[in-house]
């Protein structure tokens, strides 16, 4: 079991560092390239929402990233001090109508499609989003 921690300023150009941290954890968990990418994508979406919607209008702040990896599983925890927002609420998948395709609302869809379990907790002015991903391992 390995834990990685990282604090980034809540800015769009800092999100890549959170992705890199998740990538390292996913590789350590033994995830394949495609599952690893999906996890990076999910954390990018969650961070982007925090930066844009959480810190966007008000006080800027940091994002604390914690990635816990064990064989076949990673847990990603994000903490921010923006207004309360429950990203664990499963969105409904927008319909992909050829004539009026969805131009927004894809971030939460991606997070919930990729992750197996998403939980949310608000405590002492902090949003804590916990996302878990398991990958079936080849039996050795």
């Amino acid at each position, binding site marked *: 079991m390995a834990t990685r921690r990282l604090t980034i300023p809540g800015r769009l150009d800092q999100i890549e560092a959170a992705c890199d941290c998740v990538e390292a954890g996913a590789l350590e968990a033994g995830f394949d390239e495609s599952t690893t990418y999906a996890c990076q*994508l999910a954390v990018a979406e969650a961070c982007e929402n925090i930066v844009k919607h959480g810190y966007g209008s008000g006080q800027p702040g940091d994002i604390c990233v914690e990635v816990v990896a064990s064989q076949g599983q990673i847990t990603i925890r994000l903490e921010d001090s923006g207004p309360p927002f429950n990203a664990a609420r499963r969105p409904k998948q927008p319909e992909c109508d050829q004539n009026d395709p969805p131009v927004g609302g894809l971030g939460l869809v991606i997070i919930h499609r990729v992750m197996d379990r998403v939980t949310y907790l608000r405590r002492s002015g902090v949003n804590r989003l916990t996302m878990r991903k398991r990958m079936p391992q080849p039996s050795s």
Partner: protein
Amino acid sequence: MDIQIQEYKRVAVVNIVGRIDSSSSADLEASLQALVDKGKRNLVLDMSKVEFLSSSGLRVIVNAYKACKEVGQLCVAQPSERAASSLSIAGIDTLFTVYPTREAAIASF
């Protein structure tokens, strides 16, 4: 992210290299908007060198798709595995005709 544009008579090919994420999607948006403003509505997005594609990028691409679709078409050529993953995870892979090569995409117009 780096964007290379090749304009032909009937079609423009936009080769996107690198990460299309929330910090770079505005550049892509500006490039696509410039083409649309010039009247280019047959667009091929060469996604073979896309390393990352988040929802901000998808939004820009869907908007460009909408801007083109009345008189032309936006299609995708040879997407990288990651680009294809993002389209499919977001559930919008059915929107775009995807060609295995730039050439096939260009020849479709």
